[in-house]
């Protein structure tokens, strides 16, 4: 059941909310049990066969955590901790990487190991990471103890269960571990607003360019020679699609949690405005970045070590980040590329600092932001391409190996723009694949670019109402007061989304695959 589906919006969510508000807020446990049951149902709706796996994982991790707490300072606690984390990783590895490893071994040894018919359980990467984080925290702070209901609710609470944000126990459990669990009018208003904004990002923006992205990458996969323009536009479109898709999902998750009076951490903070790759990673999928930083990068030594070891730490963290996203070489290379970018950025910062330069110029910021955006685009090619040859095909068109080409469907060569482009060295070629109107597509992409580069993000717009755990800067304009004008606009746009339910079934969120 997708957050953007009619079943979720018109059946599951209202039923869950009605049940929640019919149950008294004090004591909190009946409401928590209700939400726990609703979350398990939400998960089971996808595939009931995997519910035991989810419940087993929760029980196992809770038992491990309890053992560590009860046997604090004893060697057995360490053994159980290592076993617990290993079991989590083995489970994740089995479902996610078995076929990838077999394929790799097969290629290396030139032996066919076959394939296992394994269906990746929905959300396994997310609930595994959430629980590994919990075990590490329990091991570090061995006096940590939570009731089973609170722990189970923390893991399965449906707004974050499927694709994050990856939440940490100390920021979530205290919100509902007390005597009451309640949501007030502000929670409901902010929750609805966040949810609707996320829904609009997904349905009205991300899904609107999805078919073009699929077409471009499909053509590349079929071995077609793409024009330079299509290769760039397709990759730019994908960068926007994944941003609006995933940040839309995160907004919806944050909004849903807030409907029940629970605040989630921020997951996106205008990443495409980043002035450096380091800034990008501080604002893209923030909860994954901080997980990797705290539970992998820092334990490896972080930056408090020799330069070469630091490079290793960055590369190892980013390669594993790539592998976490998917069992494929394209993801590994995507992670590796970002690791390389981070190493270069770090070296550059050291270089600049060693000369004492203060690069606080607007043009430097513009240049570095542009460069960051372009290198991120190059990396997205690997993320989106199904195989390395497909990525190679896309990149060769992007760097102009097939010429600086554009189809005459974009603009006629004899129109003023066409003449200008011809003079600039662009060659016009006949349209190679059927796509919707380039005019509409480029306008939409332009609007989306304006939104990501110049408008405040969702939590900034709602800064007055503290929609996330972190404090957001209130923008001078475009902030929502949640008065009648905002209500009219949000309600009006909802009609278009409802129409969308009739036109096409909602497409799954990109991060559901991970």
């Amino acid at each position, binding site marked *: 059941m997708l957050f953007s589906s009619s079943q979720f919006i018109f059946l599951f969510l209202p039923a869950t909310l009605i049940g929640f508000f019919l149950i008294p807020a004090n004591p909190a446990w009946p409401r928590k049990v209700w939400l726990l049951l609703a979350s398990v149902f939400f998960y089971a709706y996808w595939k009931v066969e995997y519910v035991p796996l989810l419940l087993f994982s929760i029980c196992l991790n809770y038992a491990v955590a309890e053992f560590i707490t009860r046997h604090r300072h004893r060697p057995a606690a360490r053994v159980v901790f290592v076993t617990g984390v290993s079991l989590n990783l083995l489970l994740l590895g089995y479902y996610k990487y078995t076929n990838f490893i077999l394929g790799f071994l097969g290629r290396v040894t030139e032996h066919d190991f076959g394939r296992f018919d394994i269906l990746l359980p929905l959300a396994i990467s997310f609930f595994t990471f959430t629980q590994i984080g919990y075990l590490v925290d329990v091991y570090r702070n061995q006096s940590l103890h939570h009731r089973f209901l609170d722990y189970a609710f923390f893991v399965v609470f449906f707004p974050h269960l499927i694709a994050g944000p990856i939440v940490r126990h100390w920021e979530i459990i205290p919100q509902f571990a007390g005597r009451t669990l309640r949501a007030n*009018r*502000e929670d*409901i*208003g*902010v929750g*609805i607003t966040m949810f609707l904004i996320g829904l609009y990002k997904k349905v009205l923006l991300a899904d609107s360019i999805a078919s073009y992205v699929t077409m471009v990458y499909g053509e590349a996969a079929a071995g077609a020679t793409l024009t330079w323009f299509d290769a760039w536009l397709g990759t730019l479109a994908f960068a926007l699609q994944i941003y609006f898709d995933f940040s839309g999902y995160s907004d919806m998750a944050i909004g849903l949690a807030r409907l029940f009076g629970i605040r989630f951490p921020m997951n996106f903070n205008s990443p495409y405005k980043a002035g450096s790759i380091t800034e990008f990673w501080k604002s893209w999928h923030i909860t994954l970045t901080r997980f990797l930083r705290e539970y992998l990068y820092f334990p490896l030594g972080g930056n408090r070590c020799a330069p070469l070891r630091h490079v290793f730490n960055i590369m190892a963290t980013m390669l594993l980040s790539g592998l976490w996203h998917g069992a494929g070489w394209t993801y590994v290379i995507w992670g590796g590329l970002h690791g390389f970018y981070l190493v270069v950025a770090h070296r550059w910062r050291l270089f600049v600092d060693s000369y004492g330069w203060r690069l606080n110029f607007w043009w430097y910021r513009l240049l570095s932001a542009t460069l960051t955006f372009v290198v991120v685009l190059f990396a997205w090619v690997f993320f989106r391409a199904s195989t390395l040859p497909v990525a190679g095909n896309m990149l060769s068109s992007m760097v102009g190996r097939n010429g600086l080409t554009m189809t005459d469907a974009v603009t006629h060569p004899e129109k003023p723009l066409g003449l200008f482009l011809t003079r600039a060295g662009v060659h016009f070629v006949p349209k190679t694949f059927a796509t919707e109107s380039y005019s509409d597509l480029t306008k939409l992409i332009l609007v989306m670019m304006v939104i990501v580069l110049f408008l405040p993000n969702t939590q900034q717009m709602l800064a*007055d*109402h503290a929609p996330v755990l972190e404090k957001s800067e209130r923008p001078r304009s475009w902030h929502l007061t*949640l*008065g*009648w*004008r*905002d*209500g*009219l*606009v*949000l*309600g*009006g*746009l*909802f*009609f*278009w989304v*409802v*129409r969308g339910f*009739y*036109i096409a079934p909602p497409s799954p969120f990109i991060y559901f695959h991970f």
Partner: protein
Amino acid sequence: MKIPWKFFAALAAGFVLVMGFYATRFFLILGVPTESSRWCSEIYEKKRLAAEKITAPKLLLVGGSGTLFGLSATEIQKQTGFPTINYGTSAALDTDYILSRVRQVAKPGDTVLLCLEYELYVHGKLDRATATDIFIDYILSRDPAYFYSLSPLEKWNVFMTISSQRVKQGLNNRRRPERRADTNIYGSVYDSKFINEWGDQMNHSLASRPASVKISDIQRKLVFGDGLPEHPAGFEVITSFCEWARANHIRVLATFPNICQRPEYNQPPSQQTAKTITDFFTSLDVPVLGDYTESILPPDQFYDTLYHLTDEASIVRTQRLLKHLAPYLKNGNRQN
């Protein structure tokens, strides 16, 4: 910070206001003709007039463009002397609509030969998941009465799924009607002037086949190799039509549509589909003329698309059909 109740009221009001605005625009385009629906509308009108002119019992050949291009009413009338009208138009118009148009012209004593494309068995009443934009465009611009005859749910489905571009086009046409195009969007042969007095399509000879047509493209399309769904929606609509025909002393016959040869059509799934259709008609006491293999023709006998035969091939196919059809026409409609 407290959120006022009027925010929540405005959320609902915004939804209702935009829906109202959209509904107003929608109702303003009902009955406003579009150029894209002209061809179907004109040929239906021509065929309707031809059918109404005949006072004696007549034969109506019913289907989509497969019937229009693939059977010859002229040849049937020439061979048997039985007044015949080709009432085929476009399969994009859906089974229910095609049969509803037949209901308007069929009279007691008439015979209806159903030569429905395989898709028309799959689709039944207006289903927005399967209805084509051509159909929606057509009923909104040319037959709003049909739109009003739909159930509230079907009307709602059309209202919610019509594209914004189509609404915009309708509003533009309302202000300034579209100019009649010299050539139809589907091709130059798709013009009512190429429909003869028996409702047959003319000018689709092998010699006039457009150079852009690739026979391999026609042959590539697999029509019914995957079989029919378990409960084809079209069966319900056809059943209802046959019941209506029986009540009105109209005889119904059926045959298979013309398709292009493919090895898959000799395989069990295709044979099963043909058997399902035959059994279905048999259960309704509707005679099925010929075997499905008789309607499978070589690729070079097709004109421009799947189901569309050339002039020459349609004569051959009609003559083949006549062997089965003639006895029924000789005896007239003796049902009831």
